[in-house]
């Protein structure tokens, strides 16, 4: 089963996990969220409980800090597994957070994930790029081509 996950993103092999829990011991989210245990996620994947993990909200609680991956003695990369699970979730239409969908749409129009904002400073004075003397932000010259590719790879129909 982990072959699917590997195909999506993983460079490492989760099978060699020996459940030492080092990943969990340093995970800042495991410290705060009782249900979030990277070593358990790895075990579930290895035992084939993919459907169950995919439907668990906690896979979206990972803060993507890669500490687990950095300190795993077996080089398992739990963070990549969590990210692959998120990708699988989206691919299967189980969950695709709106934030991402909107951002991808914005790239297809402007080249960037975020809208240019007006920002207030400490004195509540409002600034934008222009009033700060920063050069204007322009979309890539071939945004029509780039935009199409972005939508297709983002799996979004306009």
């Amino acid at each position, binding site marked *: 089963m982990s072959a699917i996950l590997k195909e999506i993103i993983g460079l490492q092999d989760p099978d060699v996990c020996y459940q030492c829990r080092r990943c969990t011991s340093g995970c800042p989210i495991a410290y705060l969220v009782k249900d979030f245990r990277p070593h358990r996620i790895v075990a579930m994947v290895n035992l084939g409980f993919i459907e169950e993990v995919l439907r668990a909200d906690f896979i979206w609680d990972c803060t993507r800090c890669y500490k687990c*991956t950095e300190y795993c003695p077996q080089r398992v990369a739990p963070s990549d597994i969590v990210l692959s699970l998120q990708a699988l979730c989206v691919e299967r239409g189980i969950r695709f957070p709106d934030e991402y969908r909107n951002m991808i749409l914005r790239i297809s129009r402007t080249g960037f994930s975020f809208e240019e904002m007006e*920002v207030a400073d400490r004195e509540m004075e409002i600034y934008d790029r222009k009033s700060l003397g920063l050069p204007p932000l322009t979309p890539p010259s071939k945004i029509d081509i780039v935009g199409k590719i*972005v939508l297709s790879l983002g799996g979004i129909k306009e």
Partner: protein
Amino acid sequence: MSRKLAVYWGCFTSTKQYALELSTRRVLESLGVDIMELKDSSCCGYPYRGVRPKLWTFLAARIMALAEDQGYDYIVPVCNGCYNSLIKAKHYISENKKLLDEINGYLREEGLVYRGKTRVVHVIEYFHDYYDLKSLKEEVFNSERRKLKITTQYGCDAIRPGEIPRFDNPRNPQKFENIIEALGFTAIRDYSRRLDCCGAPLMAVNPELGLKVNWLKLRSAKMSGAELLVTTCQYCFEMMDSRQESSESIMGEELGVPVMYYQQLLGLCLGLSEKEVGLNFNMSPIEFFLEELKR
């Protein structure tokens, strides 16, 4: 010797974190470095590495292909996320010929090719190894600053995962502290959550959890005894500076940790004004530190 530098600004800096762009521009000008703008630039794809991995690799490769096309040997993304996005995508594509061909198929539509030649240099690495520590010291060092203690936030994306070659030891990096000491300050090289996450990646899906992570991190930085925390990452900055207050209210305890970008601090040391380095955008209590710095 004239110095040139191709900077990749990324989305978050150019649409919101203006203080980082301002201070970076002013600092490089003061140091006599010409900024080369990466033309036709776009998002680096990093936010989608989880939900749409192929979109991520395409967008990241696109930035590096642009840099190659415009003749740059190396580029400096000012954003930590962009930095990790590019070096990770580079690593990942280099191990996957099929993906490389597919991505080049897309890039060709725009007349671009990805060859993987451009070096991607972190901001800290740039000051430490390219501008270089010695020149920085010659330019800025002042021993009277030694009384001020400063600690760091590298940000996860600067250092992990360490299996991809980076600018410093992923388990005990020192270069950030070195470029702080090059200005004359005392760097605090350890606190318990020094290499931990600020919680920013959670803000899209679970903000409350993100704010809690941030608070724990800030408290640990505070206990280090530092009078200022500096970062080069604008996601960390937004969390630790601008969202510090929200974190405090969620956890019900005030911390009051002053936070700045490294480029802002460097700018001040170069004699730039507070406004020139965008310090009016910092929301954390930096006044005390600024007063100490002037004394």
